[in-house]
């Protein structure tokens, strides 16, 4: 299956449903994705080859390259259903009864998604030592595969004497707004606003920030039908769910926080530090999506009720499945994932022209959300459903004329750049030369930078690497990291000391081991370790030629060239 076959088919006059025969429909995702393409006459890419699939899904789920051994075994395996079986191996085993103390590192899947949530929740220096307790909490929640709704409720409602020891309380503390000198005084109402805005954004996919400074009317008519109808007071009523939430530094000047529910309520008279002054309004808590009020039931305070309302609302599941869809498919069904326009979701009630229904596949989104809820908000089930589908497994190579409109049909798999962490860990694995990094403030070492709690962990011990990682899009998490390409990145792959030193023959490295083998094995293995496939005839000839001139030097040059290939750094 692949490019050549498809082109041959095209030349033979077979209609270019680009993959040759139409892709089989493996699950509900395929039903919706392929039937929409058929209805609209949109051709799709062929199914990805074994090598393409293996590299992509291993990076997507674990942030690591598949090893040459894994690639060899997988491509040689003729068992039907081997792709589904391989996917299962990427999830770490759940802990069992009587397991005793666990090793600290259980599986790269956990590091990859701990980093994802660390970026999403902005786990950074604003929390100081809370970074570690927060990261470890997230890691543990993933390890135990805690249902996502429980995980979210846990963080929203967490309290503690110190965020440095109570991991989940860091979620709330992270959103505090300081006043005055910026160290000791909290602005309670601004903090409540932030908590409302961020929980609504991250967990409901809805952005309230646009109307936090002014009403939607007169400003947002071209941006979002729903937001244009909202008022500033709607933000305050959402914030009022956090009206009793107390967040304050424990020692006055250090980012170590106490979180509890001892505040008096949302006070309109407090002067805002970050926004325009508030005006008189009803600020009894009201859930923005359905107006639900706090019912003061015993045993459930405002913050707890908010967490329950939020996770019970259908939009929670929709936003969550959409977020993970975007992460794995390169583009959300609603894109960008935190930009839902709630007035444009229902195909049975379409918005007035020229507006269109916002999700590219509204029935799929709802079905996927329903499936997610039915399976107890299980993230692994969600990811499994997505990556098992043939929609996910389409090649990113599309033979024929691509039209930009095809993007929303998911007619080929998206191409992305490796994240900064993926990139460096891939270089370490490809060259077989690893470093030892230390978690800041803890006596814990790690081997892959995806294992870090935060990139500051290796800033002091590995400043050169840290600088390069910032060029590759790591940030301080005030803003999310990016995978945008740049000239500096290209230059560093070509000429950075860290890369140049690793492509040299070194003791214990991959090149040293391979030079003991014959040239064909060496070439094969280097290709497998970098671009995750064997060389084609032309590539093999060029590589062997390079080795024949000067063996050791040629091997170094070959490894350098492989790391500088576009199909090394891009995930396709």
């Amino acid at each position, binding site marked *: 299956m692949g490019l050549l076959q498809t082109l041959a088919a095209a030349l033979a006059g077979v209609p270019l449903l680009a993959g040759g025969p139409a892709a089989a429909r493996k699950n509900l995702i395929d039903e919706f994705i392929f039937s929409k393409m058929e209805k609209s006459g949109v051709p799709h890419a062929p199914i990805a080859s074994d090598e393409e699939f293996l590299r992509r899904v291993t990076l997507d789920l674990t942030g690591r390259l598949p090893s040459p051994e894994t690639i060899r075994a997988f491509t040689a395996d003729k068992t039907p259903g081997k792709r589904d079986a391989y996917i299962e191996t990427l999830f770490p085993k759940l802990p069992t009864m009587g397991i005793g103390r666990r090793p600290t590192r259980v599986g790269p899947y956990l590091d990859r998604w701990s980093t994802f949530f660390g970026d999403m929740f902005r786990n*950074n*220096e*604003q929390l100081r030592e809370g970074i570690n307790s927060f990261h470890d909490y997230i890691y543990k929640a993933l390890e135990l595969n805690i249902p996502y709704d429980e995980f979210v409720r846990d963080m929203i409602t967490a309290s503690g004497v110190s965020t440095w020891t109570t991991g989940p309380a860091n979620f709330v503390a992270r959103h505090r707004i*300081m006043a005055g*000198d*910026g160290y000791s005084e909290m602005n309670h109402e601004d903090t409540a606003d932030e908590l409302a805005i961020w929980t609504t954004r991250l967990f409901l996919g809805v952005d309230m*920030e*646009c109307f936090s400074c002014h009403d939607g009317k007169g400003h947002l008519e*071209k941006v979002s039908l729903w937001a244009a109808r909202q008022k500033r007071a709607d933000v305050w009523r959402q914030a009022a769910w956090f009206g009793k939430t107390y967040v304050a530094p424990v020692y006055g000047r250090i980012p170590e926080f106490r979180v509890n529910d001892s505040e008096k309520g949302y006070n309109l008279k407090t002067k805002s*530090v*970050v*926004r325009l002054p508030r005006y008189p309004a009803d600020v009894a808590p009201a859930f923005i999506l359905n107006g639900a009020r706090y019912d003061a039931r015993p045993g459930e305070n405002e913050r707890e009720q908010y967490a329950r309302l939020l996770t019970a609302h259908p939009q929670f599941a929709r936003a969550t499945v959409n977020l993970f869809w975007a992460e794995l498919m390169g583009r959300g069904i609603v894109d960008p994932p935190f930009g839902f326009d709630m007035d444009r979701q229902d195909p049975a009630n379409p918005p007035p022209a020229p507006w269109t229904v916002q999700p590219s596949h509204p029935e799929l989104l709802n079905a996927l959300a329903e499936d997610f809820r039915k399976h107890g908000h299980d993230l692994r089930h969600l990811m499994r459903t997505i990556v098992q589908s043939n929609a996910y497994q389409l090649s990113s*190579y*599309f*033979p*024929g*004329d*691509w039209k930009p409109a095809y993007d929303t049909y998911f007619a*080929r798999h*998206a*191409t*992305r*750049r490796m994240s900064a962490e993926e990139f460096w860990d891939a270089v370490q694995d490809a060259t077989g030369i690893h470093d030892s990094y230390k978690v800041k403030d803890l006596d814990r070492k790690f081997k892959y930078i995806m294992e870090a709690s935060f990139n*500051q962990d290796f*800033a002091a011990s*590995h*400043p050169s690497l*840290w*600088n*390069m990682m*910032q*060029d590759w899009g790591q*940030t*301080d*998490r*005030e*803003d999310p990291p990016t995978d*945008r*390409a*740049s*000239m*500096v990145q*290209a*230059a*560093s*792959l*070509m*000429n*950075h000391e860290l890369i*140049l030193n690793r492509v040299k023959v070194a003791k214990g490295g991959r090149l040293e081991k391979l030079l003991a083998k014959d040239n064909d094995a060496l070439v094969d293995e280097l290709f497998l370790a970098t671009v995750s496939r064997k060389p084609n005839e032309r*590539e093999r000839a*060029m590589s062997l030629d*390079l080795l024949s001139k000067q063996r050791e030097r040629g091997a170094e*040059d070959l490894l350098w*060239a492989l790391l*500088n*290939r*576009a*199909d090394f750094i*891009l995930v396709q």
Partner: protein
Amino acid sequence: MFPTLTRRKFWQYGAVSVTGGVLAPGTGRLNAAATGKVTPRGSADAVIFLNLVGGPSQMDTFDFKQYKFTPEDLAVKAHPLGIQWPHGLLPKTAGILKHAALVRSMAAWETLHNLGQFYLQVGHAFNAARAKEMPSIGSVVAHEMLAKAKASDFLPPFVSMNFPAGAVNGTLIREGYFDSSTAPLTLDVRKGGNMPFLLKDDYRDRFASRLDFLRSFDSSRQLEGSGVNKLVREWDSFSKSAERMIRSPKVAGIFDLKEADRQRYGSSAFGDACMIARNMVDSGGGARFILVNQGGWDHHGDIYGKSNKGTMEDRRARGGLYSNCGELDPALASLAADLEASGKLERTLVCVMGEFGRTPGPLTDIQGRDHWPNVRCGLFLGGGVKGGKVIGATDDQGAKITKFEWHKNRPIYPEDVTATIYSALGIDWTKKLGGAPSGREFIYVEDMSPTGFIGSTEIRELFA
């Protein structure tokens, strides 16, 4: 042409002079509209902005105020400019003040670093709805200057060096919704920071042969057709630009810092960055806004260092103002002297300031000063600035501006500094652009401030 532009983008920029509009990716025409109300002076070809991140204490540096507890070795004495100057902290800078305008009637709007830095780097208030799309001053300059780029340009128009890590400092603001060609080339000139553009002499031949091999070897970049994802082509384009820059003999000259020079600039990462800024200007390679950042000015505690024992050299190692000034002084003085000597100072505007000032009066209980927005000070030199002058004055504590000494007769705000920078580069600071994701117009410098209409404008007194 600046290397990251593909042929398609070159056409877009080529179109600017014809239609007055520029296609920003995916957002339609920018509908640029200059109002024509102002006449930018165009007295500079480049700007070097020394960003003193954290907010330097005005009363211990450029706007000196004597207190009972002021350490003796600050060596404060009168300067020919008619001001008191801490010759112990800034001895070499005293010598180049004849080229500078010292402005003491500046103020800031913000008291928090991230908001203050945003204001400093963008010239606009931090606005949660718009912050992500707002381009920094450097990107606006890049956008304007790329339209007039020369074929011989080989440097990106916007370069930033050494922005300090850590959320507390604020962030380096980038291009917002503008094209990625206006993004800053971010370099970290620190011990351990490697300059990937510097090609070692003994590696040159091998590098050439590796590139030769790669060109025909990497079939993944050679795929043709609309079916190939544009990211592949983008990556190829960046690689080719990187290759050109690494192999350019001029670039080696920029990053190759001679030890004797380094010592003159203070043998520090900041000094190195100032040298690179000088080299970039000297090369005429197309760098137009060079942001050199120096962190560590946020002296809430131990503003005079951790101990008052030892020589000045010892104290420079012990933190506080001694460390910061110890780095700033030789670098700034050498930069000014070198630009003067090469004749480049006339067309290079150098600005030196932080995001706000510090609290006047007694020190805090941890021997420092906290944030103070009401008074801020800065230095301007080159690019048409008339040297040897002082604009504005503050009270004897450094708490309040007593004399504005410019035609607007109010504190000088970040908006005015921004307008001055644009004006010096020949950019109409009242220009409005469309195409932003929020749907709102982006005005280079707004007349409105957090407190109302201020009529932002260039500080023409600098040039008179």
